[in-house]
């Protein structure tokens, strides 16, 4: 990221977050602005194993909001990425029905971030 990193007051992880995309960065700012505690990629869910028990597919949602007990995955605009993430989120919900996860799109975060002038 090229932006000067803001002071994140509500980050609750132990390791400095290394945002992979601009959207993730915007999401973190949005949570912080609203005083929502957040963690970055704290847990990986195994979605598929082969016959020998080797991991075939896994999914690490971008954020966990502990106060809301909610995982949040944000996506970029590219339709291929959106489709892939939709599939992973669907699979996660099937395998881990107790886990709450929401998928939000880049345009939504950009819209909200602009609304709040972040």
């Amino acid at each position, binding site marked *: 990221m090229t932006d000067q990193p*803001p*002071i994140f*007051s509500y980050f609750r992880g132990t390791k400095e977050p290394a945002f992979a995309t601009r959207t993730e960065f915007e999401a973190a700012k*949005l*949570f*912080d*602005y*609203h*005083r*929502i505690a957040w963690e970055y990629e704290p847990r990986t869910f195994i979605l598929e194993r082969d016959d020998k028990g080797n991991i075939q597919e896994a999914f690490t949602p971008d954020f966990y*909001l502990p106060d*809301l007990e*909610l995982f*949040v995955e944000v996506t970029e605009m590219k339709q291929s990425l959106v489709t892939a993430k939709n599939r992973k989120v669907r699979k996660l919900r099937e395998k881990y029905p107790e886990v709450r996860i*929401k998928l*939000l799109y880049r345009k*939504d975060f*950009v*819209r*909200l971030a*602009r*609304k*709040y*002038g*972040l």
Partner: protein
Amino acid sequence: MPEVGATFLTAADIARRTAELGAEISRDYAGQEILLVGTLKGSVFFVADLARAITVPLEIDFLSLSSYTKEHKETGNKAIRFLKDLDQPVKDKNVIVVQDMIDSGLTLHYVYRSLNIRRPRTLEACVLFDRPQLRLVDLDVKYVGFEVPDDFFVGYGFDYRQLYRNLPYVAYLNSSPNEPELF
């Protein structure tokens, strides 16, 4: 400069739905009193009309919430807060927070948290517009005027750079070549 476009809701549409919400709230709180808490500035017209559609005794108060400003940026102190708090205590009162719009639910969540610690008897919300497709926080919003799409609206409290709030109806705002992005 973007221009006011087609009408999304007429004044009559808004009045009809507001009357329904007022009747519903009056039924739910029959024999009790209410404190309506409007969030400035977007909800002022809705609060005024909703209050007059409610038949049980009520008080009105307003909250103002911060938006990100240059001042925040310079100090690094960037978090939502009340710019104007309520003028009265809410303890043991039936509080209904009135907002023009709920989308992510993050703002209302903050308002709820802030008011809940003051121990109101009940705490509910009434919103004119709901965009559930953008919801992050699962809040129970008891009174909803209209579910709306992601378009940019002006009028009846909704603004574009502080303009158009005074329109008695809600209209789409059309982008202009100079400002293709409204949000």
